[in-house]
């Protein structure tokens, strides 16, 4: 978390530097102004490990889920070329994947009333996972506008999760109770659901480019890279962290 705060601090420094650059531009008659934009698009990407662990042996399929993004952005053009933006957006991030794993460690916590048990084991076989998480995202960016047609932004974001799905099946394999030396149990198909375990918050870096295609309309691409694992550290369903890494492709409309 600290790391994220540091990055956000750096970002605000950039914004204030951008503000101070105003002085140089003020020789001409530039007046700072506010801009409002509606942004709509789709998120494509993955809730994925950064570098695949060696327990994942093959990726057999990948598809994006229905993951729209819709938001509003308020930006301040402080100088002719530099500014800052804040926004709020409804942000769905999701995907589906099919893969094959080997000796994949997992711990499933089972809560039944007041009692809590666990099942721990290593799975070898096929896996299908579907992720669809919905966030309210607050991006903060420094904005560089070199000319009338292009606009670039770089900054960070903070997301609050309001609904989460993380479920799937394991099939055509076996699980070993307790670990590699435990007894082997054949699994033809079993489902799992880790949706409730997804972390409430996400934060990370984001940046993008915008190309004007009409009077008020632009096409936009924005990459957001989560720096917080989507599952908390105490979650042991997967033994490696997953991050939200998504590219939003869409349009922005200046109002």
């Amino acid at each position, binding site marked *: 978390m600290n790391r994220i705060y540091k990055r956000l601090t750096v970002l605000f420094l950039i914004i204030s530097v951008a503000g101070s650059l105003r002085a140089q531009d003020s020789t001409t008659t530039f007046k700072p102004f506010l801009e409002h934009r509606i942004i709509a698009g789709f998120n494509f990407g993955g809730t994925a490990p950064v570098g695949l662990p060696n327990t994942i042996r093959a990726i057999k399929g990948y598809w994006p889920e229905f993951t729209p993004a819709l938001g509003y952005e308020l930006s301040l053009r402080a100088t002719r070329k530099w500014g800052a933006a804040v926004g709020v957006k409804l942000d769905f991030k999701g995907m589906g994947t099919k893969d094959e794993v080997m*000796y994949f460690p997992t711990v499933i916590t*089972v809560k039944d009333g007041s009692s809590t*048990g666990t099942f721990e084991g290593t799975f070898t076989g096929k896996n299908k996972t579907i992720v669809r998480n919905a966030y309210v995202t607050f991006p903060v960016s420094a904005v560089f506008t070199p000319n009338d047609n292009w606009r670039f932004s770089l900054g960070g974001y903070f997301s609050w999760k309001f609904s989460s799905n993380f479920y799937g099946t394991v099939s055509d394999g076996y699980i070993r*109770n*307790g670990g590699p030396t*435990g007894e082997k149990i054949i*699994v033809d198909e079993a489902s799992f659901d880790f949706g409730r375990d997804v972390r409430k918050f996400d934060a990370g870096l984001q940046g993008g480019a915008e*190309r004007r295609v009409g009077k008020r309309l632009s096409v936009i*691409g924005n990459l957001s890279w989560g720096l917080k694992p989507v599952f908390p550290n105490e979650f042991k369903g997967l033994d490696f962290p997953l991050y939200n890494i998504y590219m939003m492709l869409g349009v922005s409309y200046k109002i």
Partner: protein
Amino acid sequence: MNLRKPGFLAAIALFALLFTSCIKDAPLNPEADIDSFIVDKKYLSGDVFIDQANAKVLLYLKKNAYDSGIVPRIVVTPGATINPPAGDTLRFDSTSLQQYTVTSQSGKYHKVYTIEVVNIGTWAWDFEQWVIQPTSKYLYPIEPDSSQIWSSGNPGVSLAGVPKDPAAYPLRDTTEAYHGNYSAVLETRGGTTLSGIMGIKLFAGSLYLGVFDSKYAITQPLAATQFGQPYLGRAARFTGYYKYNPGATYQNKAGKPVPGVIDSCSIYAVLYRGTTRLDGTNIHTSDRIVAVAQLPDGSARGNFTRFDLPFVYKPNAITSGSMMMAIVISSSQNGDKYEGAIGSRLLVDSLKIIHE
């Protein structure tokens, strides 16, 4: 519109990289199983069973094996090594512990298997000695010579994410005994969230002569409960003491209450031909069955009550050759169909098979 900008291309390439390549080299195999332990049939009174959960190789031997020893053929996990080597002769003329250590290909994991020669001297049980399974913490009764001939559904329940505590399992010991200090208590329990996913809403308490083959625990639970131990000759009667209190609400497989139905317990013994165990799928139907002794009425009993059940032989039953005896006890008669009443509680003690 023109999106041919390095940023976009780089991002797309990055995703392609993340999801299609980056597959690392396969990890070295961490598993260290004895997959099969093959012994010449002429030495065996029952099929070899490898208890993977407890790292034991259970051998049921004929007299000639004690005289000559055996040379088993052992197959381990690919890449793993075994010590002592598989070609060595196993002798049974001493009481020293015979063990095999299997080391995984990765070198990180070892599994030490103990050879256990199962030899049922007396067909009578008071359930005085119980041991705790080290990883899942369920109890099982052992014989005075420490061998294990009774099993239960506990190893299956352990896969459902129950708390690692003997009291969380359907079968355990109790000091509420008819004879001696302990008896066996079988209690029908509710399923867990995890077992519910598999459609299991109830675990009946069970206790049986035989083994639990974990391999089939999820795909074919009835095949996992393998009933029977090698038996010689003809049995006359199956006797013992039991006490039974059915749970309040009978439920069907879906977990829905069924009004008006009261749970009942089941206690029976089956004598059958062969060296391969019958299991939950065929214990009532196999044509290898020779004789059955069954408690006719599994209703409530407030105090320890004696039962004395005659073995009823099939007409023209052949009772020569290799035979096996199964005793199967459950706190819910339809527990094999995941029906019963949560809380049904059956105590059994002083069981005995009386030879003809």
